[in-house]
């Protein structure tokens, strides 16, 4: 059974069709990418899959379970972690608090524990803290644990955001332009990190990317989205040489 299956997903914003008949299958452990020019609808596809928007038509199945109509926090708790293009960190919270909070759905102590600081809550909070610290350690950010995120440099913020998504222990990780605004050195580091995460945690990754080099190096299969429609799908080599993709990125060849 595929991990994620999207069938004939279509979405309208008012009269504007943002996504049309979108199909996708992701097997466990696969890395897939989606490319396309600005405004092609890539982020909309992410928002539809994660339940931020509800598709006008079509089905989304995570491990065979229908997710259309569920709240986005419910879908997230089913094992769908994501990052955002503009990061969306919580600006007054520390790095450690970010990671601990991403384990929200796994907390069992309930309101009684929260109000009266029961032994169960203290145990669970301590456990959560240890897990968070070891995750940060893996991401090379343990020394930042007590920093408020707004004080961190851009690259570190990206790292924290990725760690936050991983703290949910997702089966599928959706990365929305993980290298946006990065310099070549940061870019190299983040690519190593994505590979490490994939190898060590064995999760499936679906990423939106603007830089062709990144997708070409990381992904097994790539979709090209233009005006909400998939115009090409294939391996990095196939995509690179597909005339439709070249058209979409570079414009049509002028014949006369």
């Amino acid at each position, binding site marked *: 059974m595929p991990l994620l299956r999207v069938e004939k997903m279509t979405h309208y914003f008012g009269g504007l069709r943002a996504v049309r008949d979108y199909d996708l299958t992701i097997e466990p452990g696969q890395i897939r990418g989606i490319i396309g020019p600005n405004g092609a609808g890539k982020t909309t596809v992410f928002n539809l899959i994660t339940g931020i928007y509800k598709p006008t038509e079509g089905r989304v199945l995570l491990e065979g379970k229908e997710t259309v109509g569920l709240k986005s*926090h419910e879908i997230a708790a089913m094992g769908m972690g994501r990052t*955002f293009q503009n990061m969306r960190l919580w600006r007054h*919270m520390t790095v450690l608090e970010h990671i601990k909070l991403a*384990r*929200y759905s796994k907390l069992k102590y309930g309101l009684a524990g929260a109000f009266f600081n029961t032994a169960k809550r203290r145990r669970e909070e301590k456990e959560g803290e240890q897990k968070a610290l070891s995750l940060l350690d893996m991401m090379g950010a343990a020394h930042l644990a007590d920093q408020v995120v707004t004080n961190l440099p851009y690259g570190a913020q990206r790292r924290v955001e990725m760690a936050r998504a991983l703290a*949910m222990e997702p089966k599928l990780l959706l990365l929305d332009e993980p290298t946006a605004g990065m310099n070549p050195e940061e870019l190299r580091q983040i690519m190593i990190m994505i590979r490490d995460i994939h190898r060590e945690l064995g999760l499936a990754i679906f990423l939106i990317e603007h830089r062709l080099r990144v997708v070409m190096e990381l992904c097994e299969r790539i979709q090209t989205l233009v005006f909400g429609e998939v115009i090409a799908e294939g391996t990095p080599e196939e995509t690179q040489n597909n005339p439709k993709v070249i058209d979409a990125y570079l414009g049509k060849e002028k014949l006369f």
Partner: protein
Amino acid sequence: MESRISKSPAKLLRALFSGTPLLAWFLGALAAVLCEQAVGMRVADAVGLPRIPVLFGILFMLKEPSLIPGALLYASLIYILPTCLTARILAPAANRAAAFLLSVSTGLSALVHLFILYGALHFWTDLNDYRLITAKLTLIAVMVTLSLNVINGYMGEFSCSHPGFMALGAYGATVFNLVFFVNDRFFGPALFPPSLGPYFFPVGLVLGGLAASVGALVVAVPSFRTRGDYLAIISLAFMFIVKSSIENLEVVGGPRGLSRHPDFATLPVVFTWTVLCLWVINNFVRSTIGKALNAVRDDETAANAMTVNTRRTKMTAFLFAAFWAGVAGGLFAHVVRYVNPGMFGIQKLAEVLAMVYFGGLNSVYGSIVGAVGIQLLGEALRPLEIFKWIVIPLLLILVMIFRPTGLIAFREFVVEDLVKPKKKEV
């Protein structure tokens, strides 16, 4: 040598008191109020004050400028000197005691601290009824401010319905007590022996709190569908609806209100409830479930994507905050021993909002400082009459200019750090 001389007095003072734990300061405060009990009258005579000043001599200073030196002298001799002296002398012993208490358990240490603080408050309020009622009202203000900070600070929504919740709590607790434990003309003879009343007082308060929570549900259901200004407007409307409903309900006395409250809200009772409120709210906001509020405030979409059930989080926090506002309202009615709908209007709202924003958002310390500061300032500046309402708002404007989030914002209230022994700076 030279560096020692060039040290500023403030730095010297800090160095002198750097190793003084909270325990020593509380003991110092206790010593000061005991000192006032023993020789306050004589000292007041000696410095030319007509009687023991009620609120640290500020009232005298504002009424009669010629008494300023005397009032200042009194404050230094009776409050500052004994407090600092005792704190400094007891510091080493208090440090050892604090270390021992903390090694047993944080809870025990906190209880000992609270006991000493209560002792100081008890002896201070013992001398004067005005002090007593001011102390009680200040403690209640702390509760209300804390509970509003949960919504306006931690959750980042703007709620205006707190006076309404207080009114529900006040009337709930009042009606409960008057019906069951008081013989009065309005509700007829008591249904239970009045001697049982004090034991059931917490029940009345909790019922009042629950009434406020039900009210909060009415506000929350329509307002939390989306974020934005909805809550501010709906909650403001709610406050006015509660006020005018009570004004038109003859069953509970209409605009005249209810009186003949039994004297159940004694200082220990109010103090205990305040501590309980602070403890529960602090526990809540420091738990991961409570931190979800901050996540909702800073970025709700991200919170949802990280498995946080944001709608439930917002509803829970709102109902929770309303509950404590209701309890505070119940206590308030029993402290002033009179309740009418006029008490819970726009003026109360302004007062509570001022306390929250003056003290600091997202901070338990801030709420304590804001509530105590504004409440005491309001009492102390009484002699200025109408000018009081120029001075306090001006102060608020200044705070907003120089510290837009309030005096002590975004600070965690960690009991362990507060009660631990302090190391001396070198």
